């Protein structure tokens, strides 16, 4: 199971080797920025592949009898559309559906990279010449945070768009605690703003950490199972069976986490359009 280079590794080294990103340091002005090349390249390739495929399908769409690819895409679209329709009831939901579909497809693609046998993948990348290559972009906090922060950015944008700047400011300073006289409003404003701020921070953080935690934990369990092969052939066989079992269970987690991310995004955007 293990490739030649890891045969002599200790378990700690084995796990660390697999959990290290391919880092490239980029100097911009005075600062040095770290770039996880593996995360960015894998996720972009997956995104290009997935959305390229969907684009190909949608270009050949017919209103008559749909082909199998189109039927699949329509199924996906209808699934997302139905979910969003139940949550988002503030008029035109075209953008929210598109956003939700993008998140669902992209996240599920990135999560699904977890199904690739880790050691084979590592061996393959090693063979091509990359020392480290983490295959699952969503087990990198940068990816999940990028997604959730973008979502929160959109929430703020749509809040201002739906309620106006004054309306959104009113929401920030006068809810959840409201007062009737001006003195009360002024006294309560800092507390309200504090609460809203906590909400604004906790939303993206919980979104990002939930997805990241699930995928990272899943990968570590794969690694732990993979370590069984250090014992010998018997360990490798047992490890293979366990790997299969965990992979099957992981299908649920992969789909579920993508689904949760999508649903929460739709919920947050729906909340952004709500008037108080």
């Amino acid at each position, binding site marked *: 199971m293990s490739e030649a280079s890891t045969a002599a590794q200790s378990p700690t080294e084995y796990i660390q080797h697999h959990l290290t990103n391919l880092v490239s340091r980029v100097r911009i002005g005075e600062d040095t920025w770290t770039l996880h090349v593996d995360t960015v390249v894998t996720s972009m390739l997956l995104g290009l592949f997935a959305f390229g495929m969907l684009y190909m399908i949608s*270009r050949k769409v017919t209103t008559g009898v749909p082909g199998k690819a189109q039927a699949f895409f329509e199924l996906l679209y209808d699934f997302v559309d139905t979910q969003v329709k139940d949550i988002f009831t503030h008029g035109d939901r075209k953008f929210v559906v*598109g*956003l939700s579909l993008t998140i669902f497809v992209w996240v599920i693609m990135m999560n699904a990279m977890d199904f690739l046998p880790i050691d084979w993948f590592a061996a393959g990348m090693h063979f091509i010449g990359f020392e480290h290559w983490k295959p699952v972009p969503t087990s990198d906090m940068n990816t999940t945070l*990028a997604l959730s922060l*973008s979502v929160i950015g959109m929430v703020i944008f749509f809040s201002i768009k739906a309620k106006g700047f004054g309306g959104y400011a009113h929401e920030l300073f006068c809810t959840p605690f409201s007062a009737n006289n001006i003195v009360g409003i002024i006294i309560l404003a800092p507390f309200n703003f504090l609460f809203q701020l906590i909400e604004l921070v906790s939303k993206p953080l919980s979104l990002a950490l939930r997805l990241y935690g699930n995928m990272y934990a899943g990968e570590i369990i794969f690694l732990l199972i993979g370590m069984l092969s250090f014992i010998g052939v018997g360990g490798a066989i047992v490890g293979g069976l366990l790997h299969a079992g965990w992979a099957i269970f992981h299908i649920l987690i992969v789909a579920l986490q993508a689904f949760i991310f999508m649903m929460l995004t739709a919920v947050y955007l729906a909340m952004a359009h709500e008037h108080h």
Partner: protein
Amino acid sequence: MTLLLQAIGFGIFILFTVKFVLPPLATAIETRRRQIADGLAEAEKGKASLATAQKEVDKLIAEAKAKATEIVALAEKQRTATIEASKGEAKVAGEREKQMASDEIAQLSVKAKEELRDRVADLAIAGAQRILSREINPQVHAELLNQLKAEL
């Protein structure tokens, strides 16, 4: 840096999906839904027209049936009339035949009676002649004999 790049990529993917990928699909689904709805409405209309056509057909069939019954009844009547007529004719013809036959029989029997009478008279005369040849003159008793003949 990674975060920034991922966010940019995410944004591009969202825009791409919203602008290029979903609209054709959504339009196609909407169009198909409309087509199906139209088709169903059309089918409903067809059903209704079928029902009216069925009613029309039923009416026509009922009419035709009534007409046919009428024609059959007429034919029946005609047949009975014809049969009656021919029966009457046959009866008349039979009567006539019978009449003719009985007339002939009557004539024949009259003739036979005459003949028989003549014969009997002749025989009687012959017998009487033979008995009376010696004592009776035929000329003298002719009148008497003729009277006897008429009585037979």
